[in-house]
């Protein structure tokens, strides 16, 4: 049966639907059909039994109110290389056995080495579920962070000339800023809750209250270190690092924030080195991450 309004575009999904064709019934009848179909779909299917759990998950994951978040850019994420450098700097100032200190210096030099790296980044915010993102770095300052949020996948990047954001499709054009040092500006108004880690926050943590210890080694090729301190609520309380013993290359890093007496951290971030394969030359340009015909806004 043809829809009454032939100008109306019909989706493929509608053609295979067992609902009446749009326009083939009166508005009231079509609404009745859609309502009961939706009600049955919600209540009668197996998914319905999982709905209560799902609600709890979503409510738990509701972020702090966005307007507050936007006033705290310090919560926004930073490049992995900068994070690693901040961490090794932190350890370098601690009065610790000479061998460990030397190793930390080695790790610091290795982290600054030019080259491409791909990390898996796991972020456990104070509220909600763990989020897994991909982080790519080139040298000390270029990075690409890929992840998904409520509306789809986003890609955030920085290179020597620009900072940019490819927002999830419903959020419109690509944002580009010719001022890479103020890259967090391009997130304004996006509602992206990138609760990860700001290197500046770590740099402020430099004090001798940290205790650096060497953990039992998994094998002779790797070294594991841990730094602990008695933190105030919400402060960084533990950092763990796993690195190649020979080169100082950081393989895994974990940072925890939280109340000193709580068993579970309030926030946690973990970086794991996945690959050092060379990335395409243009990987840190926004055009490598979206369709060529997508609109681009240059911000001032």
């Amino acid at each position, binding site marked *: 049966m043809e829809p009454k309004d032939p100008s109306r575009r019909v989706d493929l999904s509608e053609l295979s639907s*067992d609902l*009446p064709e749009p326009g083939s019934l009166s508005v009231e009848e079509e*609404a009745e059909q859609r309502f*009961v179909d939706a009600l049955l779909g919600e209540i009668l299917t197996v998914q319905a039994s999982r709905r*209560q759990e799902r609600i709890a998950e979503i409510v738990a994951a509701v972020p702090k109110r966005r307007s507050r978040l936007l006033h705290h850019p310090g919560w926004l994420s930073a490049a992995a290389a900068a994070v690693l450098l901040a961490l090794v700097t932190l350890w370098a100032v601690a009065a610790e056995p000479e061998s460990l200190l030397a190793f930390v210096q080695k790790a610091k030099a290795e982290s600054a080495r030019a080259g491409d790296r791909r990390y898996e980044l796991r972020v456990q915010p104070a509220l909600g579920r763990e989020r897994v993102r991909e982080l790519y770095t080139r040298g000390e300052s270029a990075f690409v962070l890929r992840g998904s949020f409520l509306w789809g996948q986003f890609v955030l990047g920085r290179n020597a000339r620009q900072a940019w954001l490819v927002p999830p499709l*419903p959020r419109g054009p690509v944002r580009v800023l010719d001022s890479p040092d103020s890259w967090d500006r391009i997130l304004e108004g996006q509602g992206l809750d990138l609760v990860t880690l700001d290197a500046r926050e770590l740099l402020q943590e430099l004090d001798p209250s940290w205790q650096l210890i060497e953990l039992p080694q998994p094998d002779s090729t790797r070294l594991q270190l841990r730094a602990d301190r008695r933190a105030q609520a919400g402060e960084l309380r533990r950092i763990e690092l796993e690195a190649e013993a020979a080169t100082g290359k950081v393989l895994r890093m974990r940072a925890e924030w939280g109340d000193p007496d709580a068993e579970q951290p309030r926030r946690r971030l973990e970086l794991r080195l996945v690959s050092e394969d060379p990335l395409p030359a243009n990987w840190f340009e926004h055009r490598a991450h979206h369709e060529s015909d997508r609109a681009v806004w240059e911000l001032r």
Partner: protein
Amino acid sequence: LSQSREKELFELLIREHATSLRVVLRAALHDSSCLDELFQETLVRAWDALPRFDRERDFGKWLRGIARNVLREHWRARAATPVGEELLEVIESHCEDFQRQRHDTLGDELGRLNLCLERLPEHFREAVEHRYRAGLKGQGLAERLGIQFENVKKRLQRARKLLLECMQREARLES
């Protein structure tokens, strides 16, 4: 209220109104694959807007109003054909009726629906069970029922109408 207490109350309200909220979203979408995404987006916006919620108003209606804005943006972003406002209004009125029946638990909701399902003639009930409980669709459903797909659509259409009439009748009796 502390934020944690506020969140607890918010969760209670959401649980109470989740079915009607999801029904509005599901009824308006051509493709339910983005249902969870839009449900989540509605909750996030509701949480953001909660300080501005007028407590004299109906929370469920307010929540579904937010969902309709989310839907409009969703259609605009995908250049998809929106469901008409008039149709959304009628769905909203069904939701309001449904909400008034005070379903405290999923069991309550299932109870009335099952009662009406049992009263359906056998061939209608069979079509509904296979379509929704077993999740069969399209040609698979037609083969299971042993009829043409066009006849499946007609059978389901009739079954939905009978179910709605039955649920409305039961609600009137209860009230």
